[in-house]
């Protein structure tokens, strides 16, 4: 699997908070070490009306964990006859990851959500064995996470509206991935508000 399992496939994701809105963005590269195989591999998955998760790391685990989590959330919704809340989804995910504490999945996760009634925003991140974080303003995962984190911190302002949030998120992601050979080749940005979700595909440097 090469030297570093978590950078074998590459990829990155970023989440940022605004005023009653959240943005989550990821790149679209699917590569095997230094070869780029596809440019349509998005890493963001929807689990409820306003709950999204992004997984970055080994591609097979990105697929498997997202599907296994979907299995559990589907059963939850059927049993409980209600939609998932962000903090519940987060806890389910960290539980799933910790079940494999001594033979872990190689994905780091970002869980984001919005309460459509109150406008309360949630961003949590997790390592690959389910370490929980606080509800933060900004979080990143992936091979270029440190680069986009720095830019994210720079562009972040508290209480941004949806448009400002989109700009800040997009610029942080697009420029950060330019420093990482294993990330990039386009981006997808979801802006989640109380009444709508906007998805935009961005074309960045195609290298």
């Amino acid at each position, binding site marked *: 699997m090469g030297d570093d399992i978590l950078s074998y496939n590459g990829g990155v994701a970023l989440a940022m908070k605004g005023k009653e809105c959240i943005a989550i963005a990821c790149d679209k590269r699917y590569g095997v070490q230094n070869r780029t195989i596809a440019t349509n591999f998005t890493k963001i998955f929807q689990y409820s009306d306003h709950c999204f998760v992004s997984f970055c790391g080994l591609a097979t685990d990105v697929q498997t964990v997202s599907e296994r989590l979907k299995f559990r959330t589907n059963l939850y919704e059927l049993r409980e006859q209600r939609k998932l809340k962000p903090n519940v989804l987060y*806890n389910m995910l960290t539980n799933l990851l910790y079940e494999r504490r001594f033979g872990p999945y190689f994905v780091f996760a970002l869980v984001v959500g919005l309460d459509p009634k109150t406008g309360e925003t949630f961003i949590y991140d997790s390592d690959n064995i389910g370490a929980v974080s606080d509800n933060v303003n900004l979080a990143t995962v992936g091979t270029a996470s440190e680069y986009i984190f720095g830019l994210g911190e720079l562009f972040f302002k508290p209480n941004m509206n949806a448009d400002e949030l989109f700009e800040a998120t997009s610029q942080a992601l697009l420029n950060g991935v330019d420093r990482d050979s294993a990330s990039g080749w386009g981006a997808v940005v979801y802006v989640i508000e109380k009444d709508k979700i906007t998805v935009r595909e961005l074309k960045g440097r195609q290298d």
Partner: protein
Amino acid sequence: MSERYGFSLTTFSPSGKLVQIEYALNAVNAGSPAVGIKASNGVVLATEKKSKSLLHDDRTIHKVESICKNMGLVYSGMGPDYRLLVQKARKLAQEYMLVYEQNVPPTQLVKRVADVMQEYTQSGGVRPFGVSLLICGYDYDEDRPFLYQCDPSGSYFPWKATAIGRNFVNGKTFLEKRYSDQLALEDAVHTAILTLKESFEGQMTEDNIEIGICDKEGFRRLTPAEVKDYLAQIG
């Protein structure tokens, strides 16, 4: 260790009945009465707790028990079977909390407890539980109280008000007349005590009945002093 039977002891009769469950229900109906009433803002559970002897010192044994912060239960039937179910219910509530980091909604816990009771009607070498449970809880998502009954068969029923145990038919008839959707918790406690009184032999005191209430703040058992106050109000 113990040898396990590979076959169930609860089998169908030609008429399609599971006789063991019928017998379990007989055990329940011979047990001391319990009452549950769902008010607009909470639920009350009440039961008779008579000691068989004056020498009994049962201020520490309780029939009304809490499962978790927002749920409680009471029973009619066999005490030891009840104890086991209380332990299982508590564990199930905590397992839920561990995975979802939320208080278990009453509907979910009741399903899980009822599934346990059903297992014992089909698994090898065991008998059904000789208790019916009245489980109450507050659902914070839906912002309303719930009252459920769980039977030895594993069936569960949501109730507005119900009685189980000895004289339950009279109890339910009494409740049908007294129940209204606008009942507040305070009134529901009075009604519950009056329902118990219908089948009570002797003088009702704060030591021979137990009352639990569940509202938005959570579930709690009333202290004997509080029970005494309610009894005084009834006269």
